[in-house]
């Protein structure tokens, strides 16, 4: 966190998306050491902690990428093909969205995630609708929708 220019942003509460990335397939040895039950347990405990702290907005897991679809907008209508979209490193299989008081807090929560070797978390800030041109009719409507669905 060497980026000192954005410290003004640091204290602003905002939403962060924590994207679960797998750098590589696990080795058979690593896989053998895995207990599915233990993972469920640890994830459950981590989620409970996020809920108790009032920071969890949403968390979802995704079904295998091969089961998904890819739409290419190179032409109209777009070309639909079966997934996966790309290599393991390009994909992700789950995410959390947290609402934290600062980006340091987001990094702190991310560091506590029960993840292991071969896994990275990509943290991305979710800009608030307030950062966009408020004169635009659609932005105003989106603001209204976000308000009405608890997403501000």
């Amino acid at each position, binding site marked *: 966190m060497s980026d000192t220019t954005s410290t003004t942003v640091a204290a602003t509460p905002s939403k962060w998306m924590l994207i679960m990335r797998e750098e590589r397939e696990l080795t058979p040895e690593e896989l053998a050491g895995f207990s599915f039950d233990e993972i469920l347990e640890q994830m459950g405990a981590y989620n409970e902690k996020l809920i108790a702290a009032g920071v969890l907005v949403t968390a979802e897991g995704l079904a295998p990428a091969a089961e998904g679809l890819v739409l290419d907008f190179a032409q109209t209508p777009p070309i639909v093909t079966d997934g996966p979209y790309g290599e393991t490193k390009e994909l992700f299989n789950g995410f959390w969205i947290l609402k934290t008081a600062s980006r340091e807090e987001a*990094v702190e929560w991310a560091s506590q995630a029960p993840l292991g070797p071969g896994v990275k978390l990509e943290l991305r800030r979710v800009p608030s609708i307030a950062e966009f041109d408020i004169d635009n009719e659609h932005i105003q409507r989106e603001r209204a929708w976000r308000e009405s669905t608890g997403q501000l």
Partner: protein
Amino acid sequence: MKYMLIMRQTDEAVEAMKTADFESIINAMGQFNESLVKAGVLLDGDGLSDASEGFVVDFSGPTPTVTDGPYGETHELFNGFWTIQVSSKEEAAEWAKRAPLSPGQKLEVRRITDMSDFEDFADNEYLRSEDEWREMSAEHRKGEQA
């Protein structure tokens, strides 16, 4: 079932976006979002700020290490998504087709896991015996309390 529509793009599309008419993009997106809301299928959707503003936490070492973003190349990243609740994979694809995106942009459509994904595990012998063990130990604990 819930689906996530993940916005993917190429470097060329990122470049093109810099000179694009932002207002008309917002309007087209706004119309698309509204059609999702009116149909009762939109659950949430967000755009992400620039990937270089983000962070990467690596869990490979004994303690997690934090570095500045971006996580990777353009094709590895995404800058926005929608979550929709629909009745079939085909319906998810139909909504995805209606997104106002342009050449260089792709949508990755992924199903969000739900209870039915864990039903498989109900048949898993290992998990079933685990369940029985849990029940037995729960009974045992009850006995201790009583």
